[in-house]
């Protein structure tokens, strides 16, 4: 293992008053999620939804896909302002002026895309299922079969759900494309939540007898699904054979990474109120759940916690992937630090992240370097799942909203809650659910798109990293597919950082698959060692800073 980055923060500190500015409205992202609530406290109301950042038209910038809800029960609105409730695809028409100014604008291309999303939407996963270089879309649902849309490459998509065999009807939230057998084709892991129907909705109350949302304990969980890609547009359900269906809970978050450093992708599943699973790949088509002994099934208290959003990333740059898992109010976000062999310590308290987030219910989250100082920070979007009494007393119509939270990585395993300094966008109290992280304006820093439950989308454009240097990598295989799962070791002026290409993680959302590395004050070119998902390792030297470079498997040393 190479030495981790131990330098102090380099480069200029954020100068502007607002580190993130919401530009959704300005940029034409006029989407408002509708959760379909009707006063019956149906559970799906507080669970959705997700958002995807992906370059569907392969023009080099990230487009946006937003998942919509539907009316639940009588009295719920069937449209918003007369506009039918449907998922939306927005094309990014980013324009970079001669002076470097970036003009963000999104165009709603849903109608012409051919994407006919049906049912109550939950989440979205992105992956190139046929290695044609174009990302495809998988949509998860509450009350309808999940849908798989093939990207035709001409701005349109074709639904192949039934033919593909991935049209599970079980309530699904997060899904992840991952090449579990390293055959060069993306397989699909789908997390299933609860066995629940509106008709069977239990009436749950607070201790005072006031109606409230039920907890997942009121219903039975469902086993997840693993689908193996047959290379012909169809998938085989290998849930039983792979043994991932032998242990399950109400799955909300899914993140894939090589947690034990053996070169094969593993799967971490965050379950709501039950023990989480760590499916270690046994390299023979089967998986073993080692979450308990690995120390990631439960926090150190031993109490099963809610566990909604999850991300894997190297918080201490020691070459392995650590975990952040968002939790319920009163529990605090969990941080599990990997020893490199897939054994974790619960460092939630020691990092400071746990104590600072105790008052919040977290969903979408990610390890991301917001200030380009070279260390991975953490952002979580929050919003309760049961009524906040103080808000109910204030007659709030949707009394579950909370503010987002941003943590700055100080090094040495410590984080600082910098929310108060992040700007007006972080003072908003909303019902955050999905969050996707990526460089939406291609200016070298990571932005965040937030899917609020029953509220407007937020496009948080990063202004915190101005002046700091960065390295952008697009890792592709033959055919141009984004090689999600590829790990990189980046050495810049003697400092080593570790990152991974990934689209999964967070909550019900899909991230920018490009690798972003903050370099702080150094603009020196970097040497990059890529561990490709298939097992091959290659070196690329002299990769320039402050731009995106495409590295293609087979072209390195």
């Amino acid at each position, binding site marked *: 293992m190479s030495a981790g980055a131990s330098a102090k923060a380099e480069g200029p500190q954020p100068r502007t008053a607002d580190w993130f500015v919401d530009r959704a409205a300005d940029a034409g992202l006029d989407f408002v999620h509708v959760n379909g609530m009707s006063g019956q406290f149906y559970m799906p109301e507080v669970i959705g939804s997700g958002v995807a950042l992906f370059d569907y038209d392969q023009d080099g910038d990230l487009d946006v896909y937003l998942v919509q809800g539907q009316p639940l029960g009588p009295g719920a609105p069937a449209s918003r302002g007369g506009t039918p409730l449907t998922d939306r695809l927005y094309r990014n028409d980013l324009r970079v002026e001669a002076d470097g100014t970036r003009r963000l604008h999104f165009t709603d291309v849903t109608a012409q895309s051919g994407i006919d999303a049906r049912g109550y939407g939950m989440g979205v996963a992105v992956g190139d299922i046929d290695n044609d270089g174009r990302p495809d879309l998988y949509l998860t649902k509450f009350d309808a079969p999940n849908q798989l849309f093939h990207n035709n490459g001409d701005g349109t998509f074709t639904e192949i759900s039934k033919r593909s065999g991935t049209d599970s009807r079980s309530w699904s939230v997060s899904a992840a494309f991952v090449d579990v057998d390293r055959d060069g084709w993306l397989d699909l892991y789908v997390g299933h939540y609860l066995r629940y129907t509106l008709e069977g909705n239990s009436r749950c109350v607070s*201790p*005072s007898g006031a109606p409230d949302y039920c907890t997942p304990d009121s219903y039975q969980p469902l086993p997840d699904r693993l689908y193996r890609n047959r290379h012909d547009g169809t998938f085989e359900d290998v*849930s039983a054979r792979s043994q991932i269906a032998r242990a399950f809970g109400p799955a909300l978050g899914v993140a894939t990474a090589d947690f034990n450093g053996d070169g094969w992708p593993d799967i971490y599943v965050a379950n709501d109120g039950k023990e989480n699973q760590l499916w270690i790949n046994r390299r023979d088509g089967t998986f073993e759940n080692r979450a*308990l*002994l690995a120390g990631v099934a439960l926090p150190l*208290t031993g109490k099963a916690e809610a566990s909604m959003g999850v991300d894997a990333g190297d918080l201490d740059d020691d070459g392995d992937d650590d975990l952040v898992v968002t939790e319920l109010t009163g529990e605090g976000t969990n941080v599990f630090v990997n020893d490199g062999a897939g054994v974790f310590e619960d460092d939630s*308290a*020691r990092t400071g992240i746990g104590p600072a987030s105790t008052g919040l219910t977290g969903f979408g989250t990610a390890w991301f370097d917001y200030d380009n100082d070279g260390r991975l920070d953490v952002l979580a979007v929050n919003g309760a799942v049961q009524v906040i009494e103080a808000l*109910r007393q204030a007659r709030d119509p949707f009394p579950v909203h909370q503010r987002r939270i941003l943590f700055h990585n100080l090094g040495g395993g410590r984080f600082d809650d910098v929310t108060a300094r992040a700007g007006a966008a972080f003072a908003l109290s909303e019902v955050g659910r999905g969050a996707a992280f990526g460089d939406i304006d291609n200016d070298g820093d990571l932005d965040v798109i937030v899917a609020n439950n029953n509220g407007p989308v937020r496009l948080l454009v990063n202004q915190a990293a101005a002046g700091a240097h960065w390295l952008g990598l697009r890792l592709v295989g033959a055919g141009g597919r984004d090689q999600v799962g590829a790990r990189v070791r980046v050495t810049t002026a003697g400092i080593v950082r570790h990152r991974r290409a990934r689209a999964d993680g967070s909550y019900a959302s899909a991230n920018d698959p490009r690798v972003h590395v903050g370099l702080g004050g150094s603009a020196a070119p970097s040497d990059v060692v890529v561990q490709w998902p298939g097992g091959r390792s290659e070196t690329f030297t002299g990769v320039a800073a402050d731009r995106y470079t495409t590295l293609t498997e087979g072209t390195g040393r």
Partner: protein
Amino acid sequence: MAVGVACVVMTMACARHDVRQAVPDVPLPDISRAATDVQAQLREQHAVMTRVVEQPSSSPAERAAAYGDMGKLFVATELYEAAERCFANARQLAPGDMRWPYYLAHVARLANDPARAAGFFEQTLALQPDHVPSLVWLAEMRLAQSRPADAKPLLLKAQSLAPREAAALYGLGRVALEEHDFAGAVRQLEAALALVPSASRVQYPLAMAYRGLGNPQQAEAHLRLRGEADLPPADGLMGEIGGLLKNAAAYETRGGQAIDDKRWPDAVRELRQAIAVAPNNGFTRLNLGTALYMTGDANGALEQYQAAVRLRPDLAKAHFAIGVLKETAGDDAAALDAFGAAVRADPASSEAQLSLADALRRTGRVEESLPHYADVLRANPSASQASFGYAMGLVRLKRYAEARDRLAEAARAYPDQPGFAHALARLLASAPDDHVRDGPRALTIMNELLKTQNTLSSAETMAMVFAEVGEWDRAVAWQRQTIDAARQAKQPALVARLAANLRLYQQKKPCRIPWADDDPVHRPGAK
């Protein structure tokens, strides 16, 4: 003189009036969404409080107590802001009473503000330095603030004052874990468990401590014992709040918590009270039935389950529970009815489907069982019991090729469940269908299985296999040994069957009946 007395009286009256006015009013918050009986309870308590605080003759201590009682009810109903106002008033009126900062601390804790809570616990300890619950709770707040070094002396003091306070030991164990003192963590957590063996929540951090010591076997042993039963400090003051609410939902919640903690008698008590308040709640009857069953009162449980389905015919779990009880009692007909009702009420219930399938197969209605096994497997591809049941159903229906294929697939899917491989081997050795039998493959499977499986059944199968591959002497020898073992195990029916097959092998004839129709493998759940 009269004027002087009047002035003194006026001054005293003004002073009393000043004391009354010194604390802010605590109006009743919006309780319109609370249950009707809870609203009544809150209104009544608020009226009592108002009467006392406005009574000119009330002493400050009496007023403080009135605010305190109101505050406790507000805590019980999670109206924390109103609770805080009450306790703040109580503290102002009776500043020497440690109860008020103590309750303020808990309000802050329940409102997820450990820093504020810690401040109030410190104030409590300033009034009563040896209050053990305050020491333990303050330590918990320090742990929540990631300050284990500050938690430790508090817990040590608590332990010195109350050596049998298991929560202090539990806290010390967690402090040790934070400090990576794994040996110390083991010592403390084992001591906590020795005092309260039912505190299953302690097992997980104890397992992590053993893991830290490099002892994964002990870690796994404790992981197997993990559970949700927590270990809070003995706390009479907070205990007063726990039982304040008298509405059905509160009894139900307390009953549910008791079920989670496996405190069955407590669960029965709380749920009976819930039913006394709301007798027509089918869910409550279902939960009470479960609690009664766990205390060993099967008849009482059945009574509650039957009441539940009368009230809620769609309550699949209650039908299922009735089915289980009837099955245990050997009443297959009633069990079938109940499982069938459970499946009709909730077709997606895998447990009901599986139990119904097993009951159908057990009672000879094998063809009818297959769709139910299939439903279970569609919902959960890893449901091995359903997979086995389906395969054995096919055997019973003499669909040997299909059975073979299912068993082969299952053997691959569940390598740690040797029953599938064993069943496959027996089928390959003795199926009447020539196209299904494969003696050499059966021999390979059994040679591997016998390394770890040495049972009468596996020995019987091995004899079948030897017979199928033509090794008659070995078949006879194995069968004789198996008969001897069956005699020693006092299984006369098995001895008779084995003897019949022995005669076949002695005549150099193979067995062609893998399992008799009355073999236990065809009667899952039989009593």
